[in-house]
Every structure is written in structure tokens, then in C-alpha cells.
């Protein structure tokens, strides 16, 4: 019997020749992640285990990104606990505010997650790294404490669902629309405890950014992980970033799947999830015209380069609607700098949007854009549960960056096709960029990449 790529990765990390769905294994991990919300509990539990040192200081990433820059005294305290632990343990991948970003955008960018890896993180969207062909899954702080102490986790080998996409993507239909559509079809527990394996001919048209967006939201269907096969797009992405060897796994032709779902994307419209569930999805034409108070473009779902680019394209030369606040948040410092250098920041600010430093901020109702009672937000984030972005009586709609940007300009949920005389943004460095001091905090490796893009 053949194995899926997920089963192969788990078998390799459990030191077994093969594994089967339902089996419990102890597996060795390649990277362990926690953030300013989950690390403090993990650290408390770590010391309760009775060990003094982490298992490998080069294999742990700690990222302050949720309530940072510290929004209040309790948040500052949580960051302080994490920072002190990182210093004391000599954690190599502690990213300080100003050199960090949203964890799931940051770690792949830094080359810390590679194909074939087993990654566990105290954050449910750790599944984002499945885009790279890694088995990555979110856990709680106690699991992460144990992983930091021993380098191992317990896992139940999950069944896999195969999601096959075929047909050419229509204009304005992105990875976000594919995943929203899929979750709309299968529901918030449609893949509970299972792996979603994304595949099919349409994938060739999806950029790495689109794939990160899709893998990111696998957990919104209850999945343990969402994996993409490794192809030329993946290999190109990791080529300039990888600093250690990695292994590519692929599913056998006779691998067993719990379900095979096929989606013809040829006539798909952009999709929007209505309150209060990511599965409450409608095609754009059915929700068109709903007035909004706020737009958020960013997060670990859609805070990457191509997301900023499509939004800038649509907002270039436009103004944000007078009754709308638009908040644009690049995922990392590197993306922030690039947006400044290449003129996107200018487009957003001139349009009357907020252009913020990287943070989770509004995505979880933390800070920088919390909603009041009765307010409605269209957001490129991944969750629209009751109270997610603020008051329990506020509303969150989820969409792609293109729909979000068009809606920010028009003041209602709108199609990107409605933006008149859209002029393609050419990314010539803006004159403002040349006035900035040289970027001393960016190392050579990063500079080289910024130029090459």
C-alpha cells in the first residue's frame, strides 16, 4: 500500500518505514515555534518538566507578533518572559520587534522551514508551512513545552483528503478564493483531524504566496495540516533561502485517501465569507454592495508581497472611501522595507490608508484597528468568529486582497473590476525611498534578495 506525502514525512520523523492513519507515534521535530501569547505558558510548563536547557537552541523560533509593539503592560510582561527565556537559553531564532514580523510570513522568508520538515508551533496557523511540502501543525503550549525540552511530540497519524483543482483561474480569483470556496463546501469541520492535500493542474498557476494563503486556512476546515506537493515554484522559493539540506516527499499513486474532492475553478467568482464563520461563504456577486466601515489588508493569510502588490495596483491613484478606514499591514520588516522602497507604501498613504508596521494587531482584535459595536469590517485575515476583531456585536467579512482593496475605495463590498481606469503599478523606486537612511538593520543576505526580486 502506498503512502501519502504526509504519512511519509511522519514515518521518517518517527524512525519508521511506514505509518498508517490512526497510529500514535512519537516523532522528532525539525522546528518548534511559539509567540508572545503562547510562549509564556510553554515556558512555565517547560520548567515544570524538570529540565534546565532546551533540546536544541538552533531549532526553536520565538516571535513576538500578536500584541507587539507592546500594546499594554500585561502584553509587555508576556514579551518580557519570552525575551528573557530566549536570552537565557541562547535561542538562535528569537526575532525582536523591528527585526520580526508575523510568524508564519517570517519563518519561510528566513528559510527556517523547508520541504519535508516536521514543524510544530503553538499557533493554529502553523499549518501555513504545508505550502512548502512540510508537515506543519499547530498545538498548545504544553505540547510545545515538551517539544522544546525533548525535540519530540506525540502525534496521531491523520487520514488525508485530496483536494484537486483543475481549470484555468479566472481573473481576480486567487488562492484565497480557492480556499474560501473549499471551506464553504466542506464546512469548518470538513477536514477535522485530517490532512488536506492540495493538488491538481491549477496549482501550476499558483504563486508561493497563494499557496501559503491556502495552507494557512486548512485549519479553518479543522485540518491538522494542509500540504502542497513540492514543484518548481517551491524549489525556486527555497533555493535562495535554505541553509540546511532538506528532503522532498511526494504521495504514491496508490496512496489511500479518505476522500477525493474535485473542483473545477473555471467559472469561480471571488469568494467572501460572511459573519461569523469562515465556512459561511458566498460568491462576490451575492454580497456585492454591503457597506463597510473598515478594511484590513494583511495577516499571516494575506500579508505577503503579491497581496500588497495587488492592493497597491487597485489603490494606485485612488482614494479610500470617506466613510472607510483602511489598514494595510505587511507581514514582515523585509516586506515593509520593500514596500517603502518600491513605492507601495506611498500609494497606500496617498490613498488615505494606514500603512502599519508588521503585527497581528487587528486580526485578533488585539490593537491597531479594533471594531466597535455594530461596525463591519472586510478583512483579508482568516477568521470571522464572533468578537474576533473586537466587539462581540461587530461583523467581519473575509476576502482576498483584491476584493478588499476595491471595497476600501468604493466603501462597500465591491469587485476589483469596478475600479475605473486602473493603471498597472510598475514598481519604480519612489523618490521618497532615496531620502531614507541606508537600511543598516537589514543584513546582506536580505538586501541581495530584495534586489533580485
Amino acid at each position, binding site marked *: 500500500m502506498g503512502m501519502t506525502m504526509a504519512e511519509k514525512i511522519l514515518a521518517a520523523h518517527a524512525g519508521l518505514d511506514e505509518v498508517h492513519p490512526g497510529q500514535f507515534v512519537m516523532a522528532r521535530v525539525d522546528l518548534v515555534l511559539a509567540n508572545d501569547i503562547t510562549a509564556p505558558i510553554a515556558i512555565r510548563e517547560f520548567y515544570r518538566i524538570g529540565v534546565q536547557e532546551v533540546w536544541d537552541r538552533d531549532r526553536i523560533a520565538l516571535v513576538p507578533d500578536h500584541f507587539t509593539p507592546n500594546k499594554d503592560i*500585561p502584553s509587555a510582561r508576556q514579551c518580557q518572559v519570552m525575551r528573557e527565556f530566549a536570552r537565557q537559553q541562547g535561542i538562535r531564532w528569537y526575532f525582536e520587534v523591528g527585526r520580526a514580523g508575523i510568524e508564519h510570513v517570517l519563518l519561510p522568508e528566513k528559510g527556517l522551514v523547508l520541504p519535508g520538515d516536521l514543524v510544530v508551533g503553538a499557533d493554529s496557523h502553523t499549518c501555513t508551512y504545508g505550502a512548502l511540502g512540510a508537515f506543519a501543525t499547530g*498545538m498548545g*503550549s504544553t505540547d510545545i513545552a515538551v517539544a522544546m525540552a525533548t525535540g519530540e511530540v*506525540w502525534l496521531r497519524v491523520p487520514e488525508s483528503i485530496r483536494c484537486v483543482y483543475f481549470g484555468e483561474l479566472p481573473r481576480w480569483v486567487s488562492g484565497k478564493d480557492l480556499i474560501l470556496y473549499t471551506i464553504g463546501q466542506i464546512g469548518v*469541520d470538513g477536514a477535522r483531524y485530517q490532512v488536506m492535500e492540495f493538488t491538481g493542474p491549477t496549482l501550476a498557476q499558483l504563486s508561493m504566496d497563494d499557496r501559503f494563503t491556502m495552507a494557512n486556512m486548512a485549519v479553518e476546515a479543522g485540518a491538522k495540516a494542509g500540504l502542497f506537493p513540492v514543484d518548481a515554484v517551491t524549489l525556486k522559493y527555497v533555493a535562495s533561502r535554505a541553509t540546511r539540506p532538506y528532503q522532498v516527499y511526494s504521495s504514491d499513486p496508490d496512496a489511500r485517501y479518505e476522500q477525493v474532492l474535485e473542483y473545477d475553478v473555471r467559472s469561480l467568482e471571488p469568494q467572501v465569507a460572511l459573519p461569523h464563520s469562515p465556512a459561511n461563504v458566498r460568491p462576490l456577486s451575492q454580497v456585492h454592495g454591503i457597506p463597510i466601515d473598515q478594511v484590513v489588508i494583511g495577516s499571516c493569510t494575506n500579508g505577503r508581497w503579491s497581496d500588497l502588490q495587488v492592493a497597491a495596483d487597485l489603490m494606485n491613484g485612488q482614494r479610500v472611501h470617506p466613510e472607510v478606514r483602511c489598514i494595510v499591514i505587511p507581514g514582515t520588516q523585509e516586506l515593509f522595507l520593500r514596500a517603502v522602497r518600491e513605492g507601495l507604501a506611498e500609494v497606500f498613504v496617498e490613498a488615505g490608508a494606514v500603512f502599519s508596521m508588521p503585527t497581528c494587531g487587528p486580526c485578533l482584535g488585539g490593537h491597531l484597528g479594533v471594531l466597535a459595536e455594530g461596525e463591519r469590517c472586510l478583512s483579508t485575515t482568516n477568521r470571522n468568529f464572533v468578537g474576533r476583531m473586537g466587539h462581540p456585536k461587530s461583523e467581519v467579512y473575509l476576502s482576498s486582497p483584491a476584493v478588499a482593496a476595491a471595497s476600501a475605495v468604493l466603501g462597500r463590498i465591491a469587485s476589483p473590476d469596478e475600479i475605473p481606469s486602473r493603471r498597472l503599478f510598475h514598481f519604480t523606486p519612489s523618490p521618497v525611498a532615496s531620502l531614507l537612511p541606508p537600511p543598516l538593520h537589514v543584513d546582506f543576505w536580505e538586501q541581495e534578495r530584495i534586489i533580485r526580486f
Partner: protein
Amino acid sequence: MKLQGTVWKYGDNIDTDGIIPARYLNVSTPEELAAHCMEDVDPEFARRVRPGDILMAGENFGCGSSREHAPLALKGAGVSCVIARTFARIFFRNAINIGLPVLMCPAAVEGTQTGQTVEVDLERGLIRNLDTGALFQAEPFPPFLMEIIRSGGLVEFVRRRLERGQ
């Protein structure tokens, strides 16, 4: 180990933002979290829940984020056990890891109402509705998980394992 408590029953897909809203995650002790437990689902819950009470829910309880704050908030609020039709994966493992008993039993959820009293025999997975006398059998834990539960949670389980040099 037997538990007995008054039931609070809720519907399907109660997410972790419902159990403990993200806006309160700048603290992490069970007591601080308990003050806002279930706030957006049932604003009365945190004020009226009594130690030992039992929470019941439908499908996919605890879906959403990986926050261990969710089971911690429930534990801090005094909830002795959660019984649901099904659980979201991360919530389920977090609850086991921190020693909050969780049982899957659609029939018990079906046959019990808010305010009724139930008795739970954890080892045997038996749930008895003391108001109606009905008896329900929950899905048994796989042996691997039972070992973690018997150790009193994952930290104890691993500590013992490390002591044995495994």
C-alpha cells in the same frame, strides 16, 4: 475517578474565541482567564458557573485557534469536564495535556439539558444523567492517551519518561 456537576449545554462549532476571546490573551493564568470564559457565547456563564459544573456541546467544540488558554479558562472557571459530540483536534489534545477531562458522547449530549445534573465515571467513560436516570457510554480513549491521562497530563508523563531515561 467520579465527577458530578450541573450541566451547561451549548451548540455546534463553539470556537476558541467564544471560549476565551483573543482580546483577553494578554494574560495567562487560569484565574484571570476564567473571568472572561465563554463571554461572547454566554455573558452569564463566567458569573454563574460553579466549581464542578459540566459543559456540554455539539459538534467540533473548541475549533479555531491553538490557544491553551481555552481549556485553561474552562478549568479556571471550575468546569470539571467537557462532554461533546465531537471536539476540534487541537482543543482535544490541549485539554488532555493540561488534565481537563474531555469525553466524546453524542448520545449524552442528546439526552441532557442545561441545568440537569450528571455523574461521570472517567475511567469507564460512563455518563449518568441523575435527573432522568439515563446512562450513556462515551467513546473510550486509545491506550496511548489513557496513559497521559493517568499520569495527570503531558508534563508529568514526559517527566516520568525522562526520569526513566527513555
